[in-house]
């Protein structure tokens, strides 16, 4: 196992982490801010992939990449108004059940609109080459995935930490009742955060589409890793999302190399350990 093998694994791990980051950051802020656990987040990611693939077929990859997050944000808007808003104050079991029902419903709606066969989305021309990195030839598109993730991280960090709206969000995550007393329109804030979270899930789907097969079940497959990321990383914080994504990406990638049978078990053990000892995760927005 020479250096190039390790570099390859490193790049794979980073790419996986960045993809998960895009998915988890929306979900973690939604959970941290609204205390709402949206199991259907994976379905939104799948929807994004489907929209991107469909649009790209006629208008090209970049249009698809642009439209997908918007489409999913619109879907999020609809779901929020008709479902999420009234379930916000319900207990966790009710939220789990409703979003579980949503998963079922969205799964079939995806099947109805697009059928059961896998859709294909080709990598755009400009990113179809390979780039040399320390002697390893790695697909340019995968670098692009990392780039999108990093850009999102930088932008979100900027917004959350350097703008007023970011301060309001952080205040809401810390203490939503107090924030409301200070005059912050918490309801509108929740709504915007939810839609942005959905858009990010859609973006993740669009970005992942050329790499994976676009099938109705893709939402189900990605949900558990996303939940693991936000729980281990820490609920409600950007730092938690990136930490969790990196931990998952690296343990999964390198674990599969060393001990393929136990890579998954290790991840779940880590998850259980965190849940029992530090339920709010490693870097939660609110103290553990």
């Amino acid at each position, binding site marked *: 196992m020479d250096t190039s093998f390790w570099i390859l694994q490193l790049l794979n791990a980073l790419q996986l982490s960045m993809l998960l980051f895009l998915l988890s950051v929306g979900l973690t802020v939604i959970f941290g801010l609204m205390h709402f*656990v949206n199991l259907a987040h994976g379905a939104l990611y799948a929807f994004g992939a489907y929209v991107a693939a469909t649009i790209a077929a006629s208008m090209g990859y970049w249009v698809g990449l642009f439209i997908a997050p918007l489409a999913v944000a619109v879907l999020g808007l609809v779901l929020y108004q008709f*479902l999420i808003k*009234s*379930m916000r104050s*319900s*207990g*966790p*079991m*009710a*939220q*789990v*059940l*409703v979003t*579980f*029902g*949503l*998963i*079922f*419903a*969205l*799964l*079939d*709606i995806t*099947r*109805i609109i697009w059928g059961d066969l896998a859709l294909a989305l080709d990598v755009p021309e400009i990113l179809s080459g390979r780039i040399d990195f320390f002697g390893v030839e790695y697909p340019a598109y995968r670098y692009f995935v990392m780039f999108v993730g990093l850009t999102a991280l930088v932008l979100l960090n900027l917004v959350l930490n350097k703008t007023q709206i970011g301060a309001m969000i952080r205040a809401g995550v810390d203490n939503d009742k107090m924030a409301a007393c200070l005059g912050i329109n918490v309801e509108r804030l929740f709504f915007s955060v939810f839609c942005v979270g959905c858009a990010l899930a859609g973006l993740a789907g669009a970005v992942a589409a050329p790499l994976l097969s676009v099938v109705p079940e893709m939402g*189900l497959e990605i949900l*558990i890793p996303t*939940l*693991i990321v936000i*729980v281990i990383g820490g609920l409600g914080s950007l730092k938690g999302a990136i930490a969790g994504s990196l931990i998952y990406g690296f343990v999964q990638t390198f674990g599969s190399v060393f001990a*393929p*049978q*136990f890579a*998954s*078990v290790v991840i*779940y*053990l880590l*998850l*259980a350990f965190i*849940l*029992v000892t530090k*339920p709010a995760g490693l870097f939660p927005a609110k103290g553990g």
Partner: protein
Amino acid sequence: MFYQTPLRKVIMLAYLLICSYVAMTADYFGVEILTELLILAIIALALDLVAGFGGMVSLCHGALSGLGAYVFATLCTKLGLGAGESILITCVVTGMISWLIGLICSKSHGIYFIMATLAFGQMAYSFVFESSYLGGDNGMAGIPRLDLTPISIDLFDSTHFALFSLFCLAVSYWFISKVLSSGLGRSMVGIMYSEKRSRALGQPVTRIKANIFGLSGIILGLAGALSAQHFMFISPSLLSWTHSGEVLVVVILGGLGTLIGPIIGATAFVVLKHEISNYTDHWHLIVGIILILVVMGGAKGIYGMLESYIEQRKTKAAGPERVLSEE
């Protein structure tokens, strides 16, 4: 608190009679559907014990019964034990694993508890999926059924197997109602309503939670052994989290915390699934919408609404001072 009310006794008896009749008169597919729903009902009962009466919403109950199926299959096909003792050992082993999970998760609450059970369920799923000894993705086949020929029952006959599953359901119901009517069961309900006060009274909260989870696991082992024998083939999909999710859906559809409700819910769910599948491929959509409507509408469930309605009529009729009959 759980009480074996006359209503529950009557409905349970009626249910057993109806199912017996169906088992003996329906065609092959009907009997197979019956067996499927009976096994699901047993798992749902086990979940209602911890969730409806203990406030511990578990998303690993499907996985635990799947694990039980694998334990049974391994004992029979790999270790050559007889089906009879395998069923017993499976119940004990699944009970012990469940007890351990209940113990570890006992300090978690709310969404964290749900996610912790999900984590353990997924752990079991991954373990089975990746294990070549257990057949991995291909599963395990050649699982035998219990030999009851000495008492003239041939479990390889569908009707007999369905009746046997019905018998196991009756035993499970009896077992769980006994647990709920015991000191341990009463204390568990108290913990559900106020863990703080229970602790302040001197209750060993952690031990009670773990014990109840373990007792639930014994029933899950029985269900697992049954499902392994039903298809005589098992695969990791038995442990998928969506399966565990479906068990929870079934309990809610029927009525959480009523014990009869989950049985009704399982029946309705499986029957609905097969009926809808006859007309359309999209039963997921319909079930999803029904689930959303049920939960948003107060989540009492089919049987739960019935009990609630009767309760309301009783309170109206009796006036302000209602005397509770000795139950």
